[in-house]
């Protein structure tokens, strides 16, 4: 019985190990190719670099300088940080208002927010872009406002769900003691919302950082482009002659921050993503 179980466990381990290799292989292949000379990437994509094909950091240096990578990286970082901060702060305030002030108008607002969650982006892509240009929101600051509008649905929904479950006696007490609603919200309510705020922040950060079509339509492929747009431009030959080595380096540099972030905050990310899935 014991040997039988041991054999079975070994078989399971071998299977899991093979699958892990299969899951990591695509990332490893990109990493491997980013260290090889241009010619050898398209010629032999699956052979590891050797003394002849190895070029060190050359591709990374080219990747940095050629495609204004740093600029796109900074744009993406700026837009993600401010969008997520804005969404977490403002939608939690709105959710509290909607739940605590009960009338027809707030109920209608709530239904509109929930409704927006099921509408695919293509439905509003053209008209939203039109308003973004009309109102001059087609810059890295303006797009933060647009992300607030698009992120509002899921975020208000998740905050409201949590606020409904907490009793409002503490808030009432704070108000009676002379706190203004603004003070009450920041000193009493928001600290209680922290777990949901982390979930909302992670879900929105992943969405905004990886988003392609919205920033492409609103910011275009010029100097304001975000990282996914820069990657798409570079790999579909937006820069004329394709430099495969530099492109591989770009892919590696685009993945690296996400993987580092993931390895450090794994627990929160997995929890947040699952909570978002179950509620949405």
């Amino acid at each position, binding site marked *: 019985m014991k040997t039988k179980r041991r054999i079975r466990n070994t078989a399971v381990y071998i299977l*899991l190990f093979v699958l*892990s290799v299969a*899951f*990591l292989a*695509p*990332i490893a*292949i*990109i990493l491997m*190719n980013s260290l090889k000379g241009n010619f050898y990437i*398209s010629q032999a*994509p699956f052979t590891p670099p050797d003394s002849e094909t190895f070029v060190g950091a050359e591709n990374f240096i080219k990747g940095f300088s050629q495609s204004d990578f740093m600029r796109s990286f900074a744009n993406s970082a700026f837009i993600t940080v401010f969008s997520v901060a804005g969404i977490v702060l*403002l*939608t939690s*305030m709105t959710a509290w*208002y*909607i739940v605590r*002030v*009960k009338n027809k108008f707030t109920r209608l*607002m709530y239904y*509109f927010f929930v409704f*927006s969650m*099921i*509408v*695919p*982006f*293509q*439905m*509003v*892509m*053209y*008209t*939203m872009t039109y*308003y*973004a240009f009309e*109102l001059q929101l087609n810059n890295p600051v303006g797009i933060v*406002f*647009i992300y*607030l*509008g*698009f992120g*509002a649905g899921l975020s208000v929904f998740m905050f409201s769900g949590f606020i409904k479950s907490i009793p409002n006696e503490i808030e009432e007490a704070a108000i009676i003691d002379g706190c203004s*609603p603004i003070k009450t*919200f920041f000193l009493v309510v928001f600290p209680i919302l922290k777990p949901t705020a982390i979930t909302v922040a992670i879900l929105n950060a*992943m969405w905004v950082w*990886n*988003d*392609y079509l919205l920033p492409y339509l609103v910011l275009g492929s010029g100097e304001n482009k975000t990282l*996914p747009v820069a990657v*798409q431009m570079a*790999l*579909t030959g937006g820069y004329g002659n394709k430099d495969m080595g530099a492109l*591989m380096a770009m892919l590696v540099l*685009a*993945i690296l921050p*996400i993987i580092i972030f*993931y390895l450090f905050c794994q627990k929160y990310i*997995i929890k947040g*993503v699952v909570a978002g*899935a*179950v509620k949405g």
Partner: protein
Amino acid sequence: MQKMLKKYFPVFALPTLAAFAISFLIPFILGVYLSFTEFKVVSERKWVGIENYIRIFSQDETFLNSLWLTVKFTFVSVLTINIIAFSLALLLTKGLKGTNFFRTVFFMPNLIGGIVLGHIWSLIINGILGYFGVDITYDPKYGFWGLVILMNWQMIGYMMIIYIAGIQNIPDSLSEAAAIDGANPWQNLVHVTIPMVMPSVTICSFLTLTNSFKLFDQNLALNGKSPDTSLLALDIYKTFYDHTGLKLAQWHGMGQAKAVIFFLLVALIAFIQLRATRQREVEH
């Protein structure tokens, strides 16, 4: 408190509401209206009734093709992703050591954005096909299965995590009772584990369903260049921004009409999901 808070509407609700109205609500209403018009730009529009909707089906064969392709793709990926993810979840809940490591590895691809993912797989698939002297645009089948593999790679880990949570929620006493009654592991799986994780199955099926149905980034990056492998979202995009033949105003009207149909299909899926979840809640 309600009365006092109500006065603070401009602070608490107005900023979110303004952003929501400008980037979603008003564009949505205008979008529905524009689907009944021909327009080169939003300000120059001509009412044409349901002409756009008729034209989608009579003059533009790409819409029905991509609808059928999307249905096929969604069906295949929902099946494969859920079967593989559930099997992995079973293996990782057996109390083996190192489970956390495998969980971390399998979940990782989920965090990488669609555009980057698409290009990674484009390199790999074209690299393999290169040995046979072709590339991914050679046959629509390559594009289709490439997309299925990519989607599996991205979604399996995510669904696996939800299934693991579902399996861990089953009380141990249930399988112990089944074992005492003489159930073998297979019977235990079919009669205890699977019925008990049905809520997770509902969640995962609908998540994979909507994600596959609305897929865009991966499709654009992996097979944006081959004409016969556009799913619905990419087809709508191409109708708007990448076309030849008809007049621009007609393309725009048609694109918007396609988007309305796409929205109705997604809404239908969401509605069925809501009913399925509600029914289960009543049963328990």
